[in-house]
């Protein structure tokens, strides 16, 4: 009897407390996400309905802003979108390819100077990119690569983002060595082991690397700002910035509409791979 009552009271307290937690969490979620929802709603509002109006529902629903925004500048937003897509997809291929090769060498192979190179690789994780920025710019200028996608894409094929080497290295080290040894007994060399044993077992880590590369490249503003000068070469982020400067003050709804468009690929990745992204951060400390 007494047991039953104590259980009941703790459950009640637990219930009240968990209700309180839910209230807190819902309030925080609402405050955090309201601006995003409001931007989405505003992109469907006529311009005069945006300012001073916090409503999440357009009184007069219109797609005008999307039509105006898409063709608002001298170059269509579709061109920016395509450019961003090309750069991001090439970066994903380059990053996954080059970083997994280096990670495999560091995780599994024996070679002279291995520890030396490994320490230098870790050192580059701390290096702010501003230090290499100007000589890299001069180098790409001399190669005549400025105003092309090459300065944004080629470094990815050379594993310039050491962070992903480290991520894949950690994952490869977790794969049991018995699997390699079995493959060696079957007569497999390092390339064969890499291709047929390591890569198939590392799909989650490769996917995490690929998704973060895509999102970070898609969102990158600084690189394109430095290297791309022609509007026909602009990425989505640069296009949006041009929009802010040229029409920003008069045409907020079109600006919001194109901002929503710019966020769509990232939101899609988030919707589909949310679990993988969160696990990737929790286990590796990715800054996200």
């Amino acid at each position, binding site marked *: 009897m007494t047991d039953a009552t104590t259980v009941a009271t703790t459950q009640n307290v637990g219930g009240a*407390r968990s209700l309180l*937690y*839910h209230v*807190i*969490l819902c309030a*925080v*979620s609402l405050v955090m*996400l*309201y*601006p*995003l929802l409001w*931007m989405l709603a505003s992109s469907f509002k006529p311009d005069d309905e945006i*300012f*001073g*109006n*916090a409503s999440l529902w357009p009184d007069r629903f219109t797609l005008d802003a999307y039509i105006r925004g898409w063709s608002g500048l001298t170059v269509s937003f579709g061109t920016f979108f395509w450019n961003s897509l090309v750069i991001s997809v090439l970066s994903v291929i380059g990053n996954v390819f*080059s*970083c997994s*090769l*280096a990670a*495999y*060498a*560091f995780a599994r*192979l*024996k*070679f*002279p100077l291995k520890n030396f*190179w490994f320490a230098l*690789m870790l050192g*580059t994780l*701390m290096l*702010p990119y*501003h*230090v*290499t*920025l*100007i*000589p*890299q710019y*001069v*180098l790409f200028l001399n190669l005549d690569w400025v105003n092309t996608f090459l300065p944004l894409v080629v470094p990815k094929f*050379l*594993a310039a983002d050491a962070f992903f080497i480290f991520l894949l290295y950690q994952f490869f080290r977790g794969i049991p060595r018995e699997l390699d040894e079995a493959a060696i007994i079957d007569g497999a060399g*390092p*390339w064969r082991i890499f291709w047929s044993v390591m890569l198939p077992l590392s799909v989650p880590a490769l996917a995490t690397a690929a998704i973060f590369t895509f999102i*970070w490249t898609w969102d990158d*503003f*600084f690189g394109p*700002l430095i290297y791309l000068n022609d509007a026909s070469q602009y990425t989505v982020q640069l296009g949006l910035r041009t929009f*802010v400067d040229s029409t920003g003050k008069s045409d907020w709804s079109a600006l919001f509409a194109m*901002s929503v468009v*710019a*966020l769509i690929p990232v939101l899609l990745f*988030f919707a589909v791979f*949310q679990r993988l992204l*969160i696990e990737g951060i*929790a286990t590796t*400390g990715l*800054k*996200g």
Partner: protein
Amino acid sequence: MTTTAQIPLTITEPEKRSKRRGGLSRTLVSYSFLAPWLIGFLGLTLGPTLASLYLSFTNFDLLQDPQFIGTANYQRIITNDVKFWHSMQVTFTYVILAVPLKLAFALGLAMVLNRGIAGLPLYRALFYLPSLLGASVAIAVLWRQLFAKDGLANVALGLFGIQGPSWISDPNYSLYTLVLLSIWQFGSPMIIFLAGLRQIPPDVYEAANIDGANKVQQFFKITLPLLTPVVFFNGIVQTIDAFKAFTPAFIISEGTGGPIDSTLFYTLYLYQEGFAYFRMGYASALAWILLIIIACFTAFSFLTSRYWVHYND
């Protein structure tokens, strides 16, 4: 038994020979895996790092060859550059406010989420979303509107009868809107804190309960000490990131760092010197000063870590 013993004997001779040749070819194979990174490291990282160190001692405008001017750039930066000191002040204010507040939010919400409440994956995903979106121009655009004179923030304040200023274009407030933008992205350190909290065994708290420790004592005597490795990690990552912040300040101020240089982040100043005025030597010196600041901060954190970071071993 006999067969297994014989196998090594029979292959000793050829193996020995192939091992000597194999050593070199194995090294070549290994380096073929390493090659893309090694080329990138030498050509895009090490070479440019040394080159920028040299350029920082020169006058260089891209048109003419760099002229060596000794430490003149550094001397001018330290003794005679008001904008440099101003951008330092802006950046340090930003780092000192944004990082602790962001981590406090992240830890607080991680602790609430760690109470085993229903719907954890949903909340976690919702809180994480701003971290994923925050770096993009679209969010900076949104922020500019939120804190404009007739923006959403002032509409909300209006409900309480408060007439807010034009936050973005008032130099007294513009930097704080960027601090708020950084706090808004507390999701990714929160996920790391949550993973850390999961590692703390529940029986530690049970023991503390029996000893009569209250919640506040439990937080300061158990949770925080056991979580210091995660605090350390998040602190370093977020601080370095905050020093490198660029995009939001650029978009909100249309590339100027205004109003009245109130959002002139260090990186923005570096960009202006290098790519607006093409003072490449001067910008290289600024980059090296940034590297020194980040290196000192990291070294200091690691050196002091043994006094406050408790590793569980």
